[in-house]
């Protein structure tokens, strides 16, 4: 039986306090959000999530346009970011010469560290005029038969906001996917080459299928980031409470409406409605992050198990 020193016991007990503190904070946030949004939870109930009306004067609130906006911008951002991020990660892990790989990895980390407000400013002054004058008319002309590319073209809107979000989340996808690809044991790839597979076949059948859970985890993590992004999106999305099938249309996200309207909301119902949107956002983010963590844990466990064999 091991003998424990008193200092060890105290050390362990003090350490245990810190994770408990984190749990208390998270539980506290959840409790406070539910408590503060109780008036509208009670008053509107499920109708809050189905209504499209956001009227502070008549005190009628519905969160559907914001949930729609958050989902659309996140999904389109992922559609744009995943091919680019994954492609870059594969290049960096497999094809790039070591010096270039290192240099680009540093750049990617720098990109991830840039405050997102800067992306918002770049968006307003560079991206939006470019979208309005060049990209959106082009898309409208050639792909205008699709409902996604119809309607008036303002520059600001779902498409521009999704592009900014994609730029923000690409570094996350690159970093994590690259680690996952590098974690595939060399012996698998060498066996594939020994059996005569091409680089592409080895990549597709061995590396990606081995790392797919981890890569999926990185994608979900990036989605969690995109869901919560506030300032960059609110500058670019047009802040219009609508649900539209067109990507050219301006819209609104949950994080944006809270950031815009919270400081001037004086009536109890108004505040409560905004806090309820915050609650929905909180729960979304928690679920998305938990999913990502679980997936990434499972892949690192898998690779430990295969290494032991």
């Amino acid at each position: 039986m091991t003998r424990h020193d008193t200092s060890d016991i105290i050390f362990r007990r003090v350490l245990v306090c810190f994770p408990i503190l984190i749990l208390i904070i998270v539980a506290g946030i959840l409790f406070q959000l539910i408590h503060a949004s109780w008036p509208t939870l009670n008053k509107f109930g499920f109708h809050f999530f189905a209504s499209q009306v956001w009227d502070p004067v008549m005190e009628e609130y519905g969160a559907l346009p914001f949930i729609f906006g958050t989902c659309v911008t996140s999904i389109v951002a992922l559609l744009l970011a995943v091919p680019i991020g994954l492609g870059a990660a594969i290049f960096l892990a497999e094809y790039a010469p070591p010096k270039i790989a290192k240099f680009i990895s540093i750049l990617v980390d720098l990109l991830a560290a840039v405050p997102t407000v800067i992306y918002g400013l770049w968006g307003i002054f560079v991206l939006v005029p470019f979208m309005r004058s060049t990209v959106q008319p082009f898309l409208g002309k050639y792909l205008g038969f699709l409902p996604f590319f119809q309607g008036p073209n303002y520059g600001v809107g779902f498409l521009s906001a999704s592009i900014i979000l994609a730029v923000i989340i690409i570094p996350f996808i690159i970093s994590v996917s690259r680690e996952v690809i590098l974690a595939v044991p060399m012996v698998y790839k060498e066996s594939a080459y020994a059996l005569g597979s091409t680089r592409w076949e080895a990549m597709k059948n061995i590396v990606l299928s081995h790392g797919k859970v981890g890569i999926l985890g990185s994608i979900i993590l990036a989605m969690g980031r995109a869901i919560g992004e506030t300032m960059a999106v609110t500058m670019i999305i047009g802040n219009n409470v609508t649900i539209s099938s067109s990507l050219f249309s301006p819209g609104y996200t949950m994080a944006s409406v809270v950031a815009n309207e919270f400081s001037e909301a004086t009536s109890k119902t108004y505040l409560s409605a905004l806090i309820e949107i915050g609650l929905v956002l909180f729960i979304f983010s928690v679920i998305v992050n938990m999913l990502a963590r679980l997936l990434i844990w499972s892949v690192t466990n898998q690779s430990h198990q295969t290494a032991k064999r």
Partner: protein
Amino acid sequence: MKKFLAFIFAVSVASVAWADGSLINGAGATFPYPIYSKWFDEYSKANPGMNFNYQSIGSGGGIKQITAKTVDFGATDGPMTQEQLNEAPGRIYHIPTVMGADAIVYNLSGVKTGLKLTGDIVADIFLGKITKWNDARIAAENPGVALPDVSIVVVHRSDGSGTTYIFVDYLSSVSPAWKGKVGKGTSVNWPVGLGGKGNEGVSGLVKQTPGAIGYVELAYAKQNDLTYAYMKNSSGNYVEPTLASVSKAAEGVTIAPDFRVSIVNSANAEAYPISSFTWLLIYKDMDDHAKGEAIVNFIKWAVTDGQKFAEPLDYAPLPSNVVTMIQEKLKQVKY
């Protein structure tokens, strides 16, 4: 042990100095912040020992804080509603300090400042009923102006604001359709349009988007060289938004004694119709004698001597009839 005692001693001395009643805290509207800053500065020079601290957190914040009594005075661009007044622990007075206005700004190539618009037309534009700049109704007000065949892009505020309140107050008073469908408040359910955050956001969107129309504070429009419209007032005159025409909105018209009055669409023939007061919020019965006296004396100075600082900062000064009413009202404040 000695260090600890010395620290306690230092803290208690500091806190006594801190509790000295000559620091007066206020919070509220962002619109009058420049003129209030100037006033605090000038007043402290004339009355050393008087220090003011003002946080421009927005009209909503000002109302919340004065109701909670965390500040000594509040400031707002939109008057408090009866419900908000009922929630306060005491009776709150609204004291107008300066006047401001909303300019209707637009981005239309070939059309300079001075496009003539009426309240009816602006309301229908913001309701989405008028969608093209060369609409017959706009052309009828502007004979001789070449209006291009461009779609109108409406821009409004995405954040709640007193600037919005003045604008929708005006639209509600000139357009029954607007009043029924949207109403007035610091945040409303805009039927159409893009939202920009702050005056900067709206002016940025208007400047960048051809065919855009929006509303910003007059001071902002002037300082940033934006193109703005001349509005038709209630007497049928097209009035340019200037400091003089804004002041006229409160001249010679009946002002309610509690000052919680809207002066949009003023009856004065020379008035700019989208004008408004900005108010300080103080309690009728002040808890602290020294602070109460200081605040009342400051306000007396601000509405008389302080008004000369208003015009250089692009604020419209109060007309003399309102100043007289304010001086009467201040006599009722007890400290």
